[in-house]
């Protein structure tokens, strides 16, 4: 792998609450190469959003106990002053959020909000920044961008708002774009358009894209590598084919089985039994063991390490490699 643009080492984000310590992120490591597409998959509460809000510096030590390293172009963001961090946010790394309506300020014009992002980092005349904003709106596929730039977010449709958010994020050509469930709040027909747009712009701008989602279907088409998160930890990591055709973790199996396939005869979806664990009282041993159909005694006591089993393919599970292969091909692929 080329020199990573973003590398996270053993990141921990713990929140002190009156009920106890919430271990939202508990020892997460990963690296992203320039121009790469990384998918991050997990249920709500798996720590995927919190990890990347921390990477962006949007969760700070004022609110949480943060440990580990976040290296951007080799520099540790966690050790930076607020002002240094601010100069990277929006310019080096940008983020697109889930709900584009609430993520845009309702009282300012869309163009003005993009201009603001430009002027926060670049010293240029307002007129020039405005032209840049309009040009960017055109590039994300908004027709009549001059006119649209002067409108307010409520005059945009859901898909257009997300396009505007993407324009805002990419206007300064960042090295990393973090998209936190960018299509969850949108119509299904619009979802594909937005994801294709992100893909196209990634090639134009050579931006690394981190796509956070709970939808493995989205991941299949729009990412190169995937990491699956559960209860604040990475439980499986590999390239796309590893995850889809050779998955080595029971939690990923569960996710794969709960995807619906319209093209196959299927009686009913198979949901993962139980619900995600409380992040205050994380089950001992493997956090997934209470929901795992293949649980063994060792799972209840020992936390499994994230071990590389093939080149670039790692999983955190006590099952033997042979067992995992067998179960996957019979139970999971046999079903599909």
């Amino acid at each position: 792998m080329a020199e990573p643009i973003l590398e996270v080492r053993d990141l921990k984000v713990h929140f002190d609450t009156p009920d106890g310590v919430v271990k939202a992120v508990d020892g997460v490591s990963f690296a992203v190469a320039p121009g790469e597409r990384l998918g991050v998959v997990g249920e709500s509460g798996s720590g995927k959003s919190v990890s990347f809000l921390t990477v962006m510096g949007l969760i700070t030590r004022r609110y949480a106990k943060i440990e580990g390293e976040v290296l951007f172009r080799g520099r540790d963001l966690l050790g930076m002053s607020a002002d240094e961090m601010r100069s990277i946010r929006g310019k080096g790394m940008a983020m697109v959020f889930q709900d584009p309506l609430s993520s845009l300020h309702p009282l300012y014009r869309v163009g003005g909000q993009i201009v603001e992002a430009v002027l926060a980092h670049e010293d240029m005349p307002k007129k020039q920044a405005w032209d840049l904003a309009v040009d960017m709106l055109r590039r994300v596929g908004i027709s009549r961008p001059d006119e649209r730039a002067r409108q307010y977010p409520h005059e945009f449709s859901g898909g257009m708002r997300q396009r505007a958010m993407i324009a805002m994020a990419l206007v300064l050509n960042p090295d990393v774009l973090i998209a936190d469930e960018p299509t969850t709040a949108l119509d299904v027909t619009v979802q594909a358009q937005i994801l294709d747009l992100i893909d196209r712009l990634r090639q134009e701008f050579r931006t690394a894209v981190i796509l956070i989602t709970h939808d493995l279907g989205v991941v299949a088409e729009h990412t190169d590598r995937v990491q699956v998160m559960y209860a604040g930890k990475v439980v499986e990591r590999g390239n796309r084919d590893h995850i889809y055709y050779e998955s080595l973790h029971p939690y990923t199996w569960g996710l794969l089985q709960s995807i619906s396939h319209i093209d196959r005869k299927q009686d009913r979806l198979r949901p993962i039994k139980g619900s995600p664990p409380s992040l205050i009282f994380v089950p001992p041993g493997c956090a997934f063991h209470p929901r795992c159909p293949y649980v063994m005694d060792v799972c209840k006591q020992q936390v499994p390490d994230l071990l590389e089993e093939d080149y670039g393919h790692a999983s955190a599970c006590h099952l033997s490699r042979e067992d995992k292969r067998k179960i996957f091909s019979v139970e999971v692929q046999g079903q599909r």
Partner: protein
Amino acid sequence: MVRYIIRRMLWVVVVILMITLFAFLVFYVMPPGDPAVSFAGRRPTADTLEQVRENLGLDKPTYVQYGLFVKQLFLGDEYGWPGFGFSFASQVSVRDQLFNRVGVTLQLAVGAVIVWLAIGIPIGVLSALKRRSKADRLAMGFALFGVSTPVFWLGLMGLFVFWYKLGWAPGTGYIPFGESPFQWFTHMLMPWFVVALLFAAFYARMVRGNMIEVMSEDYIRTARAKGLPERTVVVKHGLRAGLTPIVTMVGLDFAQLIGGAIVTERVFNLPGLGNATVDAVNRGDLPVVLGVTVFAALAITIMNLLVDIAYAYLDPRVRYT
């Protein structure tokens, strides 16, 4: 927008008509006594009473009296437009009396609004940003004190401490600005603060609540994600959204004060509308009471309209048709 304003103006007329009707019923029809008795001197003869009734227009049937009142209000009377008739007690124009007095009340209200916004907004914003800090607790303690302190107590305590004991304040009464700007200012200062304290406390709490809510909005996170300096995030994105609802409150609270800050004007002996109201009620001077009522109602309905219009400019999502 123009159509909307015209329609609202017509509604103002309707509301004013309704209010005059209710006010007229309450003050002229429902009380059991005969107003003429109070103004006919001691032990009036039947003839005198008859005379007084005729002079005051009380001899006519009630509906004629009301019709006359409305006619005067919309078309003016011998004293000018709008006509409020003449005072039973002093036999002079109610209109002139109201216009003389509303100036003092306006000065009190405008000054108080400035003071309470200048105190309430910064306290509310800082409290919201430094939530659960000592400063926040102190500020909310002040707010609790402010909302629970009766104005008459505060006014009297202010006079006792700053005038009687310390000798810093000049005491009560009103000095016109034209006579001595400095004296005017020193005489108005304490009334301003006394009126403002309750509102300042109330606004501090409201601004704090609004700001806490706004600062947790997604668009604030977006503003930070863009790399804006924290000050810009708070002022341009947070305050702009957090203070917009306050505009409504300021308009209505201000309008209410124009109707007369009765207790404050009384305590500080300011010749404003509120003081006039109390005097008129005590003397049974019905035209003055009715005049003040209509005046206050007008202030509130018109301010309401202005606030709604202002809102269309402040929030692009609001559109009137």
